[in-house]
C-alpha cells in the first residue's frame, strides 16, 4: 500500500473510532445534538455525559492503545524477536501486583493507579539490575531475566487471587484482563505517548539497523548500548503508563506492530507512527464494543482486543504469505 494513502486511512480510522466512541452508549444522543454539544452550544446532562464520561474514556483508550503498540514495536527490536510484547519483561506483572495489593487494602482509584505505576517501575528496575549483572547486557540475558521475573509476579498474582476475599475478586479480575471503565487520565497518557513517539522517531533509522542484529547495526554506525538502554527505558515507561491507566490489556502490543509490519514493511520511520495510530484506533473501537455489546453489562476490553485482533491478524498472515 502507498504510504500517504495508508496514513490517511489510519487517521480516518482514528477519527471514526473516536466519533463512534462519543456517539454510542447507553444514553442515546442524536447526532445533531452531539454536534451542537461538541461545539459547546448546549450544556446539560448530555453534555456532561459527553465531556465527563465518553470523551475522556475514548481519549484514554486511544492513548493506552497507542502506548502499547509503540512499546511493542520497540520491544520487538530490543529483543530481536518479532513475537515479543510489552509485557514480556514483567512490567505488567509488577504493575498487577501493585494494583491488586492496593485493591485489597481498599485504596481508591487513584491509589490503585499509583500502586500499579510503582509496581511497574519497581519491576523495571529489578529486571534492569538483574540483567545488568557483572557481564555484558545482551538481549538473551535480558529476555531470560524478564521472563523469570514475570513468572515470579505471576505466582504472586495467583496467590493474591486465591487468598482475596470474595467481594474483591471481580474488580481484580477486570484489572487483570484490562479495563477502561475507570480510565480518566487521558492527558498524562497522551503526553507520555507523544513524548515516547518523539524519542522513538528520532532513533527510527537506527532501529531499522538494530532489527538486523547488533553487529550489523554497530558496523553501520549505530551506538548499540545507548540505543538499547533508551529502548528499554522507553518501552518500560510506555508500558507502565498504559497498565496504570487501564490494567494489563493484552494483545494490542503484540499484534498491532506485527500487523503493521505486514502492511508497511519494516521501516520504523513509518512503522512507529502508524502503529500508534492503529493501536489507538483498535483499542478505542474495542472499548466502545466492550461497553455497548452486552450493555448494561460491561466486558473487560482485553477480551475484545483479542476477539478483534486474532481474526484480523490471521487473515493478514494468510494474505501476506504470497509476498
Amino acid at each position: 500500500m502507498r504510504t500517504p494513502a495508508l496514513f490517511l486511512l489510519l487517521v480516518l480510522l482514528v477519527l471514526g473510532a473516536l466519533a463512534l466512541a462519543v456517539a454510542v452508549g447507553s444514553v442515546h444522543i442524536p447526532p445533531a445534538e452531539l454536534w451542537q454539544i461538541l461545539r459547546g452550544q448546549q450544556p446539560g446532562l448530555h453534555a456532561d455525559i459527553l465531556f465527563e464520561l465518553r470523551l475522556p474514556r475514548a481519549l484514554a483508550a486511544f492513548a493506552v492503545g497507542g502506548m502499547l503498540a509503540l512499546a511493542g514495536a520497540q520491544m520487538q527490536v530490543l529483543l530481536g524477536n518479532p513475537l515479543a510484547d510489552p509485557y514480556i519483561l514483567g512490567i505488567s506483572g509488577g504493575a498487577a501486583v501493585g494494583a491488586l495489593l492496593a485493591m485489597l487494602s481498599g485504596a481508591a482509584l487513584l491509589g490503585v493507579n499509583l500502586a500499579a505505576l510503582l509496581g511497574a517501575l519497581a519491576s523495571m528496575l529489578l529486571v534492569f539490575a538483574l540483567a545488568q549483572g557483572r557481564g555484558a547486557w545482551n538481549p538473551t540475558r535480558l529476555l531470560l531475566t524478564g521472563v523469570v521475573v514475570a513468572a515470579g509476579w505471576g505466582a504472586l498474582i495467583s496467590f493474591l487471587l486465591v487468598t482475596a476475599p470474595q467481594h474483591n475478586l471481580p474488580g481484580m479480575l477486570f484489572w487483570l484482563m484490562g479495563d477502561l471503565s475507570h480510565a480518566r487520565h487521558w492527558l498524562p497518557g497522551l503526553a507520555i505517548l507523544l513524548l515516547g513517539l518523539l524519542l522513538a522517531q528520532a532513533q527510527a533509522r537506527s532501529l531499522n539497523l538494530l532489527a538486523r542484529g547488533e553487529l550489523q547495526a554497530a558496523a553501520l554506525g549505530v551506538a548499540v548500548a545507548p540505543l538499547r538502554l533508551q529502548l528499554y527505558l522507553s518501552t518500560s515507561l510506555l508500558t507502565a503508563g498504559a497498565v496504570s491507566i487501564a490494567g494489563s490489556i493484552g494483545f494490542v502490543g503484540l499484534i498491532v506492530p506485527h500487523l503493521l509490519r505486514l502492511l508497511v514493511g519494516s521501516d520504523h520511520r513509518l512503522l512507529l507512527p502508524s502503529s500508534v495510530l492503529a493501536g489507538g484506533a483498535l483499542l478505542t473501537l474495542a472499548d466502545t464494543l466492550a461497553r455497548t455489546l452486552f450493555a448494561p453489562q460491561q466486558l473487560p476490553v482485553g477480551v475484545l482486543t483479542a476477539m478483534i485482533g486474532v481474526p484480523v491478524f490471521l487473515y493478514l498472515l494468510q494474505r501476506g504469505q504470497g509476498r
Partner: protein
Amino acid sequence: MSRLAALELGLSVGTRQLCDGLCLTLAAGECWGILGPNGSGKTTLLHTLAGLRPAQQGELWLDAIPLKQLKRQQIARQLGLLLQDNHDPFPATVRETALSGRHPYLQRWQGETAADHHLAEAALRQMELEGLAERMIQTLSGGERRRLAIATLLTQDPAILLLDEPLNHLDLRHQQLLLLQITQWRRRQKAVAMVLHEPNHALHYCNRVLLLYGDGRWEAGESERLLTPQRLSELYQCSILESRSGTRRWFHF
C-alpha cells in the same frame, strides 16, 4: 599511508590466548589475506579491528586517531565490515537493506536523498540484484543474501573494508565478480583485509597475508614470500602441495 594500525594487539577468548603482540598496518591500496585454522581468531580479530569488541591488550589507530576515541558513526564513515553471516528476523526489502549502507552519513532527522538512492541502485546492479530490489530478503537464497550484504557495503563505500569470508555461498561467477571488485577497490586506493579459507585467493589477490596459528603465534608479510607449502602445512596441520605453470603457482592437497 596507513589507514588502520594495530600495535601490540593481544586477543584472547576465555582463557585461550589467540594472538599476542600483533602489529599490523593496513595501508591504502593494500589487500591483506587473513588465514588460519578454524577457531584461530580470524573473525575475532576482524571484529576487534572494526572496534566491535575491545582489544584486551594493545592499541588501534584509525587515520592516526585512537579508535576508542571515535564514535560509531565516525568509524562507519571510514570503515565497513562484511559479517560472516547475516540473520534477518524482521521482514525488509532488498532495496531498503542496500539503502541502509547510507546510515552513517545521515543526520538524525534526515532522510535518504536521491543521490543515496542512486548509490544503492548502482550497488544492486553491480551485484546483479537489480531485478530483486522489491523482493523481501527472507525470499532470497543464501548466495543472493551474501550479494546483498556486499551491495550494502558498496553503498556504504568506506575507505577501509574488512571482509569475513566474503566468498562464502557465492557461485563461481559471483566469486569472480567479487574478486574483480576487490582488485578495483585496491586500484581506487581503498584498504582491504579479508578472512579467507583458500590460500590460492590470498596468493593471487592479496599483496600481504597474516597467518594466525591459534596459539598466540602469528606471521605477517608479503603473500608471495610467506605462502609456501611448508608454512601452510604447518598452519593447517595437514599436507599441502604446490604446483607451478610458468610463473604462476597454486596450492592443493
